[in-house]
C-alpha cells in the first residue's frame, strides 16, 4: 500500500493531479446542481408573486 | 413591458405618444424603428414586416432620440453634410437652408462643442429635415428648446404631415400642431 502511495517517487505530482482533477469534477457537480436548484427557486418565487417583476 | 398595444398610422398623420415617466415611450419608439426586437407582436410598414427588409424600411425613416447625434468637434454644417450625406446626396446649399429653417444660421459654423443644449437640439432637427424621408420618429424633440423652438417643432411637424408624411413623436407637453391629422396615444405606466 505504501509503495502504491509512493508512486515510484512521483507521489508529489501524481496525487496532487488526481486531487486537482477530482476536486474540479466534484465542484462542477456541486455547481451544476446548485445552479439548477437556484433557478428552480427563482422560478418558484416569481410564480408566487405573479409573473410581472 | 408594453402590452396590448395596437395602432396604425397613415400618411398625413401625426401620432403623439404621451405618458408618465417610465411608461415606455422611448422603448416603444425604438421598437418601431427596429432597433429593439419586440418579443411578440408585429410591426409592418406598407404591409410588410419591418425586419423583412430592414434596410429599405430604414431608408424611409429619420430617428431623433433623447441625445442629439452630433460630433462635438465638427461644425453644425459639417455634421449634417456627413451625417445626412451617407443617406442621400446633399449640397452645401441644402444644408444651409435647413440650418436657416431651424434658426441655426447664427452658429452653423461653430464646433458643436461650443453650442448650448438648445442650439444642439436645433441642429439635430435640421438633420431630420434634410433626410427627406416620409417617416419621422422623434423622442421628445422639443427638449431644451425655448418657446420659439417649440413653435418651430410644431411647424415642422405640420409641414411634414401636410406633405403626406408621417410623424411619430413622444412628448410630455403637446406640440402646437393643428388638431386635424393629430392622433394621441396615451401610454399608462403599468
Amino acid at each position, binding site marked *: 500500500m505504501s509503495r*502504491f502511495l509512493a*508512486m*515510484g*517517487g*512521483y507521489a*508529489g*505530482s*501524481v496525487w*496532487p*493531479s*488526481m486531487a*486537482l*482533477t*477530482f476536486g*474540479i*469534477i466534484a*465542484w*462542477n*457537480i456541486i*455547481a*451544476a*446542481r446548485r*445552479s*439548477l436548484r*437556484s*433557478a*428552480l427557486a*427563482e*422560478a*418558484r418565487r*416569481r*410564480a*408566487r408573486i405573479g*409573473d410581472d417583476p | 413591458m408594453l402590452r396590448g398595444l395596437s395602432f396604425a398610422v397613415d400618411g398625413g398623420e401625426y401620432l403623439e405618444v404621451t405618458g408618465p415617466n417610465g411608461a415606455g415611450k422611448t422603448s416603444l419608439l425604438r421598437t418601431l424603428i427596429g432597433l429593439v*426586437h419586440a418579443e411578440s407582436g408585429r410591426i409592418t410598414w406598407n404591409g410588410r414586416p419591418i425586419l423583412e427588409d430592414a434596410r429599405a424600411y430604414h431608408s424611409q425613416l429619420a430617428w431623433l432620440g433623447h441625445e442629439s447625434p452630433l460630433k462635438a468637434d465638427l461644425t453644425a454644417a459639417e455634421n449634417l453634410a456627413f451625417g445626412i450625406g451617407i443617406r442621400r446626396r446633399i449640397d452645401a446649399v441644402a444644408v444651409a437652408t435647413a440650418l436657416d429653417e431651424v434658426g441655426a444660421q447664427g452658429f452653423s459654423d461653430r464646433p458643436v462643442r461650443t453650442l448650448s443644449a438648445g442650439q444642439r437640439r436645433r441642429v439635430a432637427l435640421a438633420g431630420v429635415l434634410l433626410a427627406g424621408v416620409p417617416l419621422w420618429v422623434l423622442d421628445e424633440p422639443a427638449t431644451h428648446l425655448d418657446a420659439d423652438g417649440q413653435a418651430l417643432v410644431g411647424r415642422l411637424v405640420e409641414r411634414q404631415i401636410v406633405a403626406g408624411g408621417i410623424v411619430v413623436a413622444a412628448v410630455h407637453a403637446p406640440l402646437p400642431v393643428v388638431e386635424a391629422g393629430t392622433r394621441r396615444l396615451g401610454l399608462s405606466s403599468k
Partner: protein
Amino acid sequence: MDWTWFHRFGSPPHLYRLAGTLVPWFAWPAAILIAAGLYGGLVLAPPDYQQGDGFRIIYVHAPSAWLSLMAYTMMAVTAAIGLIWRMKAAHAVAASCAPVGAWFTVAALGTGMLWGKPMWGTYWAWDPRLTAELVLLFLYLGYIGLRSAIEDPQRADRASAVLAIVGVINVPIVRYSVEWWNSIHQAPSVMKFGKPSISWPMLTPLLIMFVGFTLLFAALVLVRVRAEILRRERQARWVTEMVTQ
C-alpha cells in the same frame, strides 16, 4: 426533409424534460467508467519504463485536455445554431458548456504543470501547445465575462455567440500545435505515447477515461442547460405551471 424534429428539439419545455430524463443515463455510466479507468490506470497498468509511475498523470491530464477542446467546439457550434436560427435552446446549451469547459481547461493546465515539474524540471514553459491552452482559458474567461457583463439575456446570448464563433480558430491551433511548430517542441518523452508502441494495459484505461469524461461532461452540461432554460423562460406559462404544481 422534415424539420419538425429540429424545432421540437429546440422548444425549451421539450429540451428541459429531455435533459432531465437523460442526466442519469449519462451520469451513472460516467461514474462507473471513471472509477474503472482510474483503477486500471493507477493499479493495473504497468509503470512506464522511462517515466516510471509519473506517467499515470496522463489518465486525468489527457481526458481533461480533450474535454477542454471538445467543450469549446460544442459551444461554438451551438452558439452558431442559436445565432442563425434564433434558437433559445441552442444558446442555453452554449452557455452551459462554457463554465464546464473552462474548469477542465484549468484541470488540463494544472495537471500538465504538475507533470511538467518532474519531467521538464519546470512547471511552465512557453511551449506553443501550453500557450495555446492558456489562450483557450482566456477565451473561456472572455466568453463568460462578456455574458455576465450584458444583463439582457437575449443580447448576452447573441453577443457571446459571435465571440465563441470567432474564437473557435484557436481549437485547431491547440490541437495541432505540436505538429505545426516542431521548432520548440515538447520533450520527446511525451510523444512516445503517440507511437503505436504504447501497450494495451496502458492504453485501455486511458480510452475508458476518455469515454467516462465525455459522458460526465454531457451530464454536467445537461443539468446546466435545465437551469439556463428555466432562467430564460421564467415568464413562460409552462415554467410557472411546473413549479407551482
